[in-house]
Structures are given as structure tokens and as C-alpha cells.
């Protein structure tokens, strides 16, 4: 994990500890995310994968008991410093959730709303179209933009949520098990989309699906639970290396399906 080049990372954590009340959920996370690549975070249930992901755009702020120590650096700035407005952080670092959660509005409004509240100046129509095209959804919904987003299928809803995130022009997109509520075909579409999006965006994905991490990500971070039940990162590297030649015994056991 020692990297002394002056490379700029998409996001970087330094000795990040996250607590729920007195309980330390995650400890000593030093993670450097490659820009414009797909990084997957894998590990058994309860190891703090989602907690770490939410720490990247301060979504843990909404859990009253949650607090953290250490640093999360985005463009060299620790996003947990008091002068940082979490609203800006979340606009720059978007999020796609486990269950598709489109707003109960029209498809058009789902995309346009985020831009509008962020004082977007350009043409909303163009933005809606380009965001839907980028999310590979335009061809399917271009004739029904005024229909309710809830009328779409689960996979379409999830791509709509991705398009919605793209519309506010983020730099990083966090995905919290985005395919766990979808069927295999919809899952593949999302994975293809992620590959396409990684040309312009940094993508960090938490997944339970080992095959998904293996085929869809460039880098993989493996988390597990320590004896004190705190999650910690035990291995991080290029996906091909982590999957074929893990350095850690526990990683190997998990990837080969011996536990987890």
C-alpha cells in the first residue's frame, strides 16, 4: 500500500475509523481510489463495506450515532472538516442505492430535479436527454418522459437513478450493491453501463456478488471483521491480482467461497 508517487487519487482515506455510538464499526482504513476506474469493495456481511462507502460522501451524517475519525480526502481536502458543506460533497460525489429509489415523479422530473436545485443554467431538455443516453436508458424511455418513474421495471429504475446522479455532474459515483434487487439480465446491463461510465467517472461499488466484482471492477478492496467485530481492509489491489493471487489467506478463503 505504499505509493510515493505524486499521483492524484480520486478519493483517499487516512486512518479512517467509523463509530456507531461507542461501537467501532470500521478501523484503520487507508484506501486510495484510482480515478476513472471501477473499484469494488467486497467482504462478508457486517464488515463495514457500506459504512465506508457512505463515508465518502458524508451519507453517514444521517445516522445520528455515527461519527468518524481520520481523514477522507477529496481533491486534497478532508471532507469532514467543519468548513466543508456536505451539500457540495454530495453534489460532487453522487450515490446509487441498493434498492432503486426514483422519486414518485415523472421520468423527466427525476432527472431535471437535481440539476434544478443545484442552480443548473443550461437547457434542461438537453440535460435530461444526455443523462438518459449516458445511462443507456434513452432509447427505452424517450417516448414516455412524462410517465411516472415508478412505472418502469426495477432494472430501468436503477438506470434512471444512475442517470439522475449523472445529471448533477458528479466526479465520483458511489454504488451500494446496485444490483442486489435486480435479475441477472438487468444486472449485466448495469455492469456494461458501469464500464462505459468509468471512461469519465470514478466508480466505487460495494457488492456481495463475487463474480460481479471479478468481472466488472478494475480494483478490489477486501474487507473483513477483526476479532473486536470492527471491519478492516485486509487486501487491496488490482482485481486480477486479488482474485487470482491473493496475498492474504482470509481473502483467498472468502473468494473461493469457503466462508462469507
Amino acid at each position, binding site marked *: 500500500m505504499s505509493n510515493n508517487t505524486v499521483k492524484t487519487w480520486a478519493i483517499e482515506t487516512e486512518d479512517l475509523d467509523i463509530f456507531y455510538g461507542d461501537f467501532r464499526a470500521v478501523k484503520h482504513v487507508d484506501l486510495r481510489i484510482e480515478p476513472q476506474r471501477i473499484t469494488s469493495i467486497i467482504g462478508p456481511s457486517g464488515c463495514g463495506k457500506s459504512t465506508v462507502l457512505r463515508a465518502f460522501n458524508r451519507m453517514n451524517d*444521517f445516522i445520528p450515532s455515527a461519527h468518524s475519525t481520520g481523514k477522507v480526502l477529496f481533491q486534497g481536502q478532508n471532507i469532514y472538516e467543519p468548513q466543508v458543506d456536505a451539500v457540495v460533497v454530495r453534489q460532487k460525489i453522487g450515490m446509487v442505492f441498493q434498492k432503486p*429509489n426514483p422519486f414518485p415523479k415523472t421520468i423527466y422530473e427525476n432527472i431535471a430535479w437535481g440539476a434544478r436545485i*443545484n442552480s443548473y443554467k443550461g437547457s434542461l431538455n438537453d440535460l435530461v436527454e444526455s443523462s438518459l443516453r449516458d445511462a443507456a436508458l434513452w432509447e427505452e424511455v424517450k417516448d414516455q418522459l412524462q410517465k411516472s418513474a415508478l412505472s418502469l421495471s426495477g432494472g430501468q429504475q436503477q438506470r434512471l437513478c444512475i442517470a439522475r446522479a449523472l445529471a*448533477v455532474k458528479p466526479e465520483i459515483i458511489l454504488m451500494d450493491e446496485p444490483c442486489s434487487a435486480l435479475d441477472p439480465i438487468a444486472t449485466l446491463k448495469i455492469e456494461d453501463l458501469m464500464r462505459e461510465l468509468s471512461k469519465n467517472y470514478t466508480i466505487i461499488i460495494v457488492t456481495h456478488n463475487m463474480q460481479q466484482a471479478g468481472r466488472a471492477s478494475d480494483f478490489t478492496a477486501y474487507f473483513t471483521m477483526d476479532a473486536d467485530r470492527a471491519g478492516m481492509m485486509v487486501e487491496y489491489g488490482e482485481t486480477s491480482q486479488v482474485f487470482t493471487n491473493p496475498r492474504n489467506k482470509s481473502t483467498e478463503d472468502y473468494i473461493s467461497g469457503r466462508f462469507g
Partner: protein
Amino acid sequence: MTSSFGNPTFLEQNSDLNLEKRQKKASFFAALFRLSTLIAVVALSILLLSIINQAFGLVAIQDKQDRSAISQVPVEQLSQSELVTLIESNLTINRVKTLDKEKPLTERSRKDLLSIVENEVIQSRVVASYPLFKSILTPGGFQNEVAQKFPQATIRFKAWLNPQFLTKTMSNIPEQAGIRTAILGSFLLILITLLVAFPLGVSAAIFLEEYAASETKLSRIIQTNIDNLAGVPSIIYGILGLAIFVRVFSTFTSGEVFGVEGNNGRTILSAGLTMSLLVLPILITNAQEAIRAVPNSLRLASYGLGATQWQTIWHHVLPNALPGILTGTILAISRALGETAPLIIVGAATYITKDPTGIFSSFTAIPIQIYNWTTRPQAEFRSIAAAAILVLVFMLLSFNSIAIIWRNRSQKNR
């Protein structure tokens, strides 16, 4: 009995399960629940039927003045000017003056003049009345009774709940009394209550659900108190309203600071403010539940796009909670519409013929009229009280139906 395999069947094996006793218990409870529902339905039906029973029925009408002594031809055939002379010659000068003041007699319509003749000159009055079911089942009994006591009276069927009843003002004579003043008073009261309580209640609910940290001791104390306030007897709110709005803030509630003269604090504004306090806990708890029912995933989606807390509340939480909030609001209105005790304390007028003209008017409301009329000794007042109850029940039912329709629609959208 044994099966073809020589073993006992499953029916015989189960003999030690105490099945009979368990099933008996089950059917006992089923019957008990059915009975409870039945009792409730029967009680409500009896209540409604007894009100309807009072509000309709046969009446005996008798003229105080002999029609033939007043005019040779039936009054219905008299011309407009003849009716005016008839009124002027038969009523006291003072009464004619008052009538002229309201609207000059010569400018009044024929129908208007005829009703003055009927009510004030001939003075046809209901002298006896009979409830609906007796009227249908044993009309003979009433006819005999009337024939003995009031030989000149004519018997006819009267619906006490009629268009006239809705449009006329108070009167000492039951068949001429109406509840227009009370309906207007109730509406104005509800309006004030709504304008004050809705923004306050919804704001408080938003604060408690979205801003206040739910786990702190202070917010738990506030929450418990709001829940308890919903159960405080309404008369206590009346006393509070009397002490604060009628007495302490009388310069404000009487309109004195706004240049309205000649009032005390017993205005519709005081009553509306008191009513707002009364329904506030109901409104807050309902709005809180509605806000809590908005899925958290929507909030997170909104925050995830870089929305501020207010943008999240205004664009997502409130629109999705609105049907629930409105349902709670309508239930609160229903409560305010039917409340009597606080209005009596705050000082609703029991006899008032002038429509409320603004928030600084003295006023009456439908439940006050019902209360007032039921305390009168004459049977006819009980009949118009029953008619007023029907009006009130109808208004309540319509409000509640709207609430149910709204709720169903919001559930469909979710």
C-alpha cells in the same frame, strides 16, 4: 377404524390433542367479536333513527287570528298593495316601522309579504307535534288528541329539516327558527381554526420529525406532552381560552386595536384561537405520522443529489406526506365542528339573529344551537334540535368521507 394398512388413521391418532375444547373456545371468541360489532352497529342505528324520528313527523297547525276576520278572500289571492295595507292595519306601528327599516314594505316581494301575513298577522303556529314513527304507525292517535285539544287545527306532515330551516336566522318560534347564523358561525370558526392551527401544526411536526434529534430527553418530553394534550378534556381548553384570549388579550380579540368598537373579547376570533389550541395536538401527531411514513430512501436520494435539508423537505417529504397531513387536518376540523364545551366557556351567544360579519363578531355555532334548543321545554324545539343534529352529522360525514377518499388515493399512489 383402521386404514387398509392396519394402522390407525390420522384422525384416531389425534385423540389426545384436546381438539374439541380448543375449537369450542375458538368459536366462543368468534361469536363474541361478532356480538361486539353487532352491538356497536345497533347502538349507532338507534341513535340515528331516534334523531330522524324527532326531525320529521305530523304537526297540528292552528291560526291564532281567524283568517275570515282579517280578509274576505283567502290571503293568497290578495294583491301586493292589499297585502301591505293588511300588514299595516294589523301590526303595531313599531313593528311596521322595524319591518320598513329592514326593507320598505312596498318594495318587498309578494312571497315575502305573504309570509309576514302568515307569521305575524294570522300567526299560524304549530300547536302539537308527533314524532315520525308514531306518525306512520298510529296517526289516528294524534288525530284524536288534536281533535280534543285543538279543534280548529289542521294536521299535516312536516319535515323540520327543510330549506327554510337552513336559511333562516334564530327565532323564538320553533317553526320559524333556522340555523343560518349557526352554520355561518361554524364555518367562520373552522376557517380561523384552520388558518391558525394548520401552519402551526405542520411546522411543529416538521420540526419534531426532521430537525429535532429524536433521541434527546427534551424532544421525548415534548413528544409525550403533545400526545397527552390530545387527551385533555375540551372544557379545559375553553377555560384556557377564556383566561387568555377573552380576558388577557381582549384588546386584540375584540378588535379594539384595529379600531373596531363596542365588542368584548367574546368574539369568533377568541373561539377560533381556542379551537386551534384544541386541535393542535391532533394535527401535530397526524402530520408527524404522515411525515414518518415517507420512505427514508427518498430523503437519501434527495440528499445524494446535493439537496439541502429544506429542499429535501419541501420537494419530497411534504408532497409525499401531504395526503396524510390533509387527512389529519380534516379529522381535526371534524373535532372542532362538533365541540361545544369550549365555545360555551369562551362565550358563544345562544340567541343571536345577526350573521357574523367578521372575525370580531359575536357568534353562535351549530352545536351551541343544538344545546340551546334541547334545553327548551317545548317539544317543537326538540324537533329543530334534531334537524340541526342532522345538519351537523351530515357535515361531519362529508368531511370524513373526503378524508377517506384522500387517504385511499394517497395509498394508491405509493
